């Protein structure tokens, strides 16, 4: 009962909190949860949000964890998924990490490049970083390039430079 009275006492104040509203627009981007444990599948962290940009999903799903409606429905992984996993994994990663990835590619270095190296099973992340940096203009020709185009340009780059040794299964 202590908890209840304590809680009641605080309701009024937190109720006035203005910051809660800001999550609503991003929250509305969420489309729902497929099934009790969600969809299973390959790839990295694809969330069932429909067409929203990956970053919006981040805010929507994880505003301190209090606004998420996802259950165990997010998929990731680099194993046991068969052909196509490199492309799907890369696309999912691009969706959620686009801003950080663009920055790391421009710098030829960074954690996002390390992650791409792992996802696509390449050899050396420094070589991957240098190759992606050289091709920055074709990967991110404008700030509005679609995630699909960014993904395929990345895959083309990785595929075009055989010395990177990507896509080994």
């Amino acid at each position, binding site marked *: 009962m*202590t*908890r209840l009275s*304590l*809680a*009641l*006492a*605080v*309701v*009024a104040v*937190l*109720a006035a*909190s*203005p*910051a809660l509203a800001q*999550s609503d627009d991003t*929250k509305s981007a969420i489309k729902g949860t497929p099934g009790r*444990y969600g969809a*299973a599948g390959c790839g*990295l*962290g694809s*969330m069932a949000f429909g067409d929203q*940009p990956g*970053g919006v999903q*981040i*805010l929507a*799903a*994880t*505003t*301190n*964890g*209090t606004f*998420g409606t*996802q*259950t*165990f429905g*997010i998929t990731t*992984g680099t*194993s046991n998924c068969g052909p196509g996993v490199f492309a799907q994994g890369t696309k999912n*990663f691009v969706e*959620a*990490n686009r*801003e950080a990835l663009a*920055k790391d*590619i*421009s710098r*030829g*270095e960074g954690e*996002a490049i390390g*992650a791409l*190296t*792992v996802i696509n099973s390449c050899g*050396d992340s420094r070589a991957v*970083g*240098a190759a992606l940096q*050289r091709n*920055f*203009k074709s990967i*991110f020709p*404008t*700030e509005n390039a679609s995630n699909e185009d960014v993904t395929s340009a990345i895959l083309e780059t990785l595929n075009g430079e055989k010395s990177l040794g990507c896509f080994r299964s």
Partner: protein
Amino acid sequence: MGTFPAALLVSLALAGAPASAPRPDPAHLAELIARAREQRLAEEVGWLRLGHWRRTLLGGWKSEVDGAQFFLAPRGKRDPAAELEATLAGFFDDQPRADELDDAQCRFPARFAFLAGKLGADLSRLPPRRCPRLEEFLARVHPQGATMVFSSYYLNNPASAFGHTLLRLDKAPEALGGKHFELLDYGVDYAATVDTRNAVLYAAKGLLGFFKGEFKHYAYYYKVRQYGDYESRDLWEYDLDLAPGEVALLTAHVWELGGTYFAYWYLDENCSYHVLGALEAAAPRLRLLDHVGRFVVLPSDTIHALFANPGLVRQVHYRPSIRTQFEARARSLSPPQLDLVERLARDPAAPVPGALASTDQAAVLDASVDLVDLRHARDLLLGKDPVAAGRRQELLERRAALAVPSPPLEVPVPADRRPEVGHGSLRLGVGGGVDRRGGGTVLLDLRLALHDLGDPGEGFPALAQIEFLPARLRWLPREGRLELDDASLVRVLSINPVNRFDIKPSWRMRAGATTVRDGGCAGCTAFAAELGGGFATADLAGALDLLAMGEVELLAAPGLEGAAGAGWRPGLGPSALARLRLGSRVTFLADARWRFLPGARPRASHLLSGVLRLHLARDLSLALEARHAPATRDVSALVLGYF
């Protein structure tokens, strides 16, 4: 191996794995139940934790889990023994199921591993089950270790003002080239599923346990992007020293919890509480929930609880937020280079002196992109600021064209900000004083959480104050009177020092009650709400912080001679705050407020106060205080203890 869904787990928990082809044998169920009764297994801590049963006041058991699907026995929520036997029976149930989650072996892999191990079950005598989704989950998460992640304080959202904790299931100690790429790991957290947009309902339901709290898992990079990039919160990662079997059991238990829910209590049974509960269930040797508060559980308590188990934390990692990264980049640049950073952030085509080496040009461009991100993170993400997005693109193109790699950014770990070195969250104080009328006073001070600007600074953000239920009682023996000197439900102060790159306002707010100390109704207790905003400068000479604000307040009390004779009065006016820190042991705070009170009597009021705190130990301080208001002048001294 594939025949039994949980065989993977059991092989870790159990010495012997199934040897021959499985033959279902119902007689084995009776044997196992007999063994469980003989061992009194249902009373063992390992079983009780897997079901999240806690003692009730009357001596019985009740599970914190509220989802009915978590229990196989009709009275399972209150009867651990019945649930144990129903679970065993479920494992022997070989009816075909459309949904594998309706099958006990697939639904409860952690229980399976625990019971089979403890009872020495002969797996060849259980019906074989395939659990494709569970197997897919385990393969995907592929856990080799576990890490507790603490996301630091974020004052702009009340739900995360006290920080947040989550678990990370680590794919491998090393992924490639000896480096562990945590971005591809899984984060697991417990959060309320919010079903309202109404802020009042949100607060009420959150505090009163009306939301469903659920375990969820995400690619860890979602968390890094959100916390680190968009909210600029540093992350602390605590690698846990768990045995492989414990990691497997944790993963399996998280799967069990993922399909059910708890009632979410914002104050105690919250993210921090249940994340610890899950960890404790996977490793019964640990005592974690014993180390958190009874009424309020804070994310920082989670970290203290880890350290209360010696050896549990193997290593601490620090993941700097975008703000911290920018500051680290800026520190390595010369003043003319910093000018260039600012210029480029506004005009990405601005000329760069040709004499600048390409590595220096890269450093300048890297910093200006971080600056754009710092200023516009949310708008860039939501696509609301095409101008900033265009500038950013231009800067990135320019940076890439330099064709030199940036050296990995080295950010020094701020060891004195580690949450585990912070003082306890509950504060109690006792003391005495003298007021102008010559009366002695006895003071009692209580605060449920968490930190103010005068508290020992280690482990907390240097420029933030976030308090939940601070209250001070004042007893005047000569008058035989007890008064509520001041109390707040919440009190928040966020100082954002103005610098050349960042001009953000500082703000303060609180709501509570206070004793009126002017002619309005001297000595009466009034409801009080205050809100202020202004600008600050911090760390002058490494010791002094200054803040100037404009504030509005509202006082209301029956006896108050308020605006036009009403029982309430608005006030507005300037305020100033200074804090001087001498080393880590001495803090001095001075606060001055002046209020114009339109339409009320008196027409104006003021409050001046000074506080000197001496930090004797991490959890013990002395406070000397003095204040001056129209109807009060007093000095007092208190001992403050942190728990």
